Every structure is written in structure tokens, then in C-alpha cells.
């Protein structure tokens, strides 16, 4: 009996690993290309390089300035994430737990805008940033997203609504102000939802291309997505170095995902779905 179960388990693991291998094949391809010498890149279909070289990573890191892009991207996306978490969390709490006139109307407005395609708001937003004199600055990269998004507020509102009402009552009776209740009681409880939103925001802005492209001109402000796009500058793309740069771009996200996912999964369980 015991044996058959473990055989079943083994089969299950094998199945999952098999699916994963096929699923991640393009990434193995990227990884293997990033370790190949230039003359091997187009010459064969072998997944394992004949001669493994780390040279491409060095080239990407210093020659193609991925170091600079990485720092910029970390700076921009983490500030946006922080702003988003604070602003959305406060707004989500207010929408979910407090009562004030016009609340539901505002919330509907928020929901409606979630369906607006991003390409159409690009030009007006760009205009506004210009009028604010923030083109070609870090502020211009960050500001439009710093105050959070309608989606983030929606996500956190859903979470705050699931928190038991007694908590709120108890805190009010204790004489705490509403802001205090959020800060001391509710916010700490919302870790999973905050982690979910945090990861989603981070990924979104880590990969964002169009906005940084149009808003910045200076090479010192380039973020990863723009920098990677620049690899096409060289009419003969150096695939192995490009793939090395891609690997460098993915790695920080992987680490964050791995460590944040416990909360991440919990956040999903409590938030978006339970309307």
C-alpha cells in the first residue's frame, strides 16, 4: 500500500517536472544562448553549449551598461511600489470600512476607468508631465504611478471588507481615531494583500517600456526595458549578450517572487475574488 502511494507521488512529480520542462523551454533556450560563444549562437540546435562562457554577462553588465539600467529600474519601480502600497492601502481602507457621502459614486468611477486602454491616456498624461516640467527626470518616470492605481485600491478594498467588523468596533470603542485604526490594526493585518499588490506593481513597472521611452531622453535615466530594446541599435544583434542581459533582468524578480509568494497566495485568496 505504502509503496504504491509513493510510486504515484513519483509519477506526479515526474509529470509536473515534464510539464515544467516544456513550459520553461524558451527560458532554457535563453539561458543556454547567454552562455554560448558568438559563433555557436546560430550554428546549431544544441541546448547545452559546447563551451560555457560567462563573457556575455560581463559584456552586458559593463559594456552595455546593464548595471546602470538595473539601478535605475530598481529605484523607479521600488519608489512607485512604496507609493502605491501606502496610497492604495489608505484609499482601500476608506472605501472598504468608512462611510462618507459620495463614496460609492467615486468607487464606481474607479471601477470604470480600469477598463480604459492605456494607449489612449498616453498622450494627455505626457502633456501633463511636460506642463509640470518633469520630462526627462526621475520624477516624470515615477509621479504618474506614485499615487497608486484604481486596480490597487480595488484590490485592497476587497481585502479590508473581509476583515471582521468586530475589530473595527473594538478599536473605535477604545477611542482610537480612524486613521489610527488603519495604521495600528488594519494595515498590519493586510500584509498578504499588500504583498500581492506589491509584487504586481513591481513586475508591471519593472517591465514597462512605452512610458519610460517617451518621457526620458537622457541615457542616465534609461531603465532596463528601454535598454534591452536598445540592443537592436547594433544592426547585428549580439544575441548571447542580449540574453545575458535578459537573465540579469529576470533574476531579481525571481528572488522576490520566491520569497513573497507565501503572502502573495494568501492575498489572492482573500482579495479580488470575494466580491
Amino acid at each position, binding site marked *: 500500500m505504502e509503496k504504491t502511494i509513493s510510486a504515484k507521488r513519483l509519477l*506526479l512529480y515526474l509529470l*509536473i517536472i515534464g*510539464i*515544467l520542462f516544456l*513550459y*520553461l523551454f*524558451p*527560458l532554457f533556450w*535563453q539561458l543556454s544562448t547567454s552562455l554560448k560563444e558568438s559563433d555557436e549562437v546560430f550554428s546549431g*540546435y544544441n541546448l547545452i553549449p559546447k563551451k560555457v562562457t560567462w563573457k556575455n554577462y560581463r559584456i552586458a553588465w559593463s559594456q552595455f551598461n546593464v548595471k546602470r539600467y538595473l539601478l535605475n529600474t530598481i529605484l523607479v519601480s521600488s519608489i512607485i511600489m512604496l507609493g502605491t502600497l501606502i496610497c*492604495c492601502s*489608505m*484609499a482601500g481602507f*476608506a472605501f*472598504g470600512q*468608512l*462611510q*462618507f457621502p459620495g463614496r460609492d459614486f*467615486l*468607487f464606481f468611477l474607479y*471601477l470604470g*476607468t*480600469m*477598463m*480604459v*486602454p*492605456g*494607449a*489612449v*491616456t498616453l*498622450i*494627455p498624461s505626457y502633456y*501633463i508631465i511636460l506642463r509640470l516640467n518633469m520630462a526627462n527626470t526621475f520624477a516624470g518616470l515615477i509621479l504618474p*504611478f506614485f*499615487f*497608486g492605481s484604481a486596480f490597487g485600491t480595488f484590490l485592497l478594498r476587497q481585502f479590508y*471588507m*473581509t476583515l471582521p*467588523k468586530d475589530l473595527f468596533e473594538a478599536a473605535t470603542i477604545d477611542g482610537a*481615531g*480612524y486613521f489610527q485604526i488603519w495604521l495600528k490594526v488594519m494595515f498590519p493585518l493586510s500584509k498578504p494583500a499588500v504583498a500581492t499588490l506589491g509584487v504586481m506593481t513591481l*513586475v508591471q513597472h*519593472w*517591465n514597462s517600456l512605452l512610458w519610460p521611452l517617451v518621457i526620458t531622453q537622457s541615457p542616465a535615466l534609461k531603465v532596463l*526595458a528601454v535598454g*534591452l*530594446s536598445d540592443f537592436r541599435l547594433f544592426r547585428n544583434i549580439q544575441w548571447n549578450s*542580449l540574453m545575458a542581459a*535578459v537573465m540579469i*533582468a529576470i533574476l531579481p*524578480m*525571481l528572488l522576490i517572487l*520566491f520569497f513573497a*509568494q507565501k503572502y*502573495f*497566495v494568501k492575498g*489572492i*485568496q482573500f482579495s479580488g475574488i*470575494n*466580491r
Partner: protein
Amino acid sequence: MGTTIQPVTHVSMPKRAPKKRWRQWVTGYSMILPNFIGFFIFMLIPIIATIGLGFTEWDLVNDPRWVGLANYKHLFKDRIFWLSFKKTIWFTLINVPVQSFLALLIAVLLNRKLKALNLFRTLFIIPWVCMSVAVGLTWTWLFNTQFGYINHVLTSLGLERIGWLTSDKLALYAVIFVNIWQYLGWHIILLLAGLQIVPQELYEAATVDGANNWMKFWKITIPMISPFFFFDLVVNMIMTLQIFDLPFAMTNGGPGNATRVFNLYLYQKGFSFLLMGEACSMGVVLFVLIMVATFLVFKFLGSRVNYEM
């Protein structure tokens, strides 16, 4: 858990002294304020501007000129507009169900007490964090007719090679395939999260009653997961109707018009042809399309969702 699919909810509050209520108002408004400032400046104003610009002729250089409904009239006569409309609907109709069901299948497979679950979840989600530029480049390489890996495998098996991205029949499916690939992990995580809060007692009780795995899946898992699955479908649909990145990075709408989806055509109208007025009116059409589609899904599927838990 929850009751209705209504954004308006009833947070029951005991009666309070008027002073307290007043305080709640002030706190409420001030806590929304930062978020609302961003929302107002970078969402509401641009949207209103876009709606307004939809009634103008604007080449980005000279000032917009009021033309009334001319843009819409012109759009509705444009063959490519309807083509891109159709491509987008088709893209969504294939992408959403396939992606969501595939995700459900794998999520069910993973929903066991696995030691390496955290690792598996992370691995499945990797494509989601990859940049579209990189994903597009890698896949166009794999799909290349003459030198791609996929056709290499096919010809090794003695089959004819296939023009994945050069055939007007296949290109759309190839792009859909990559889209499914890139976001599958995200849907797996979402559904897995739902699966994990299905109470184990339900399964145990069913086992006692002599139910087999298949019956358990249909009678317990499916109804229990339905709110998650429904949410997943709706969000997926809204995202897919706005698809842009991958067709842009992989085929730029080609070959011919095979993968020219709505948002891509919108972008080209505005930024390649400098017809910003028409692009803005396309934005309004897309918005209406998404609203209608969401409404329909809620009407016909929403009522079947099981919210009893």
C-alpha cells in the same frame, strides 16, 4: 464568504454620534486624497481629454480641430478597423477559455501536499516577469520558418516545416499561443490559491460517501472554485481585449493583417499615421466594447457562479 457581485457593499455601522460621523467623513476623504490626486490627474483628466479629442482632427502638430462625429463615421467605413475588431474578438475567444482551463488543470494537479510546491509555483510564474521585448524576440526565433527550433523538431520527425509566423492562417494562433504561455503561470497561482481554501472536510465526507476522484472534482472542486474561476475569466477577458505587447513585439500586426489587433491598430493610427483624433475615437470604441463584453459575461455567466461556501 461574500454574497453578491456588487461593487457597492454594506458595511454595517452602528449608529454614532453626529460628531463622530463627521469625523469619519473627514478621515475618509483625507485618506482617499493622495490616491485620488493621482487618479484625477493621470486617469480622469486624460480620459476626458481622450473622449473630447475623439471628436477632433488632430495630427499631433497643429491644434485639434472639431469635426464632430466624422472620426466615428470614417472608422465604421474602414475595412481594417472591422478586421482588427474581429481579430481581437477572435483572439479573446480563444485565449481566455484555453488559458483559464489549462491553468485550472495544472492548478488541480499541483493542489496536493507537495514539498516543492513553492518552487513549482515560482517556476510556473517566471514567464510572467519576463519583458515582452525579450519574450517576443525569443519566440520569433523559435518560430522561425527555416531556422527555428520548433521546425527543427518537426523536420527531425520527418514532417514538413510550417511557416508559423509567415502564414496568415497560423500567425494569430502562434501569437495567442505565446500569450497563453506568458500569463499561464499567473492564472495557475490565482486558481491554486482558490483551490487551497476548499475545506478538506468536504472531500473527506465525499470519500465516506463513496465518491471517486472524478465525482469529487465535478461536485466539489468546480462549484467551490467557481468564484475564483469567474473572476479569473473576467479579468483575463478585460486584459486580452486590450492586447498589444506581443503582437507588437512579434509580428507588428503581420503578415498582411493577420495579427493586427485593435489596440495595435489604434497605436499605429496615432503614432505612425499621426491621426490622433481617430486613435482617440478608437480608444472610446474599445472602452465601450470592454464594457459591453463585461456586462454580457456577468449576465450570462455571473448567475451560475456559486458563492455559497
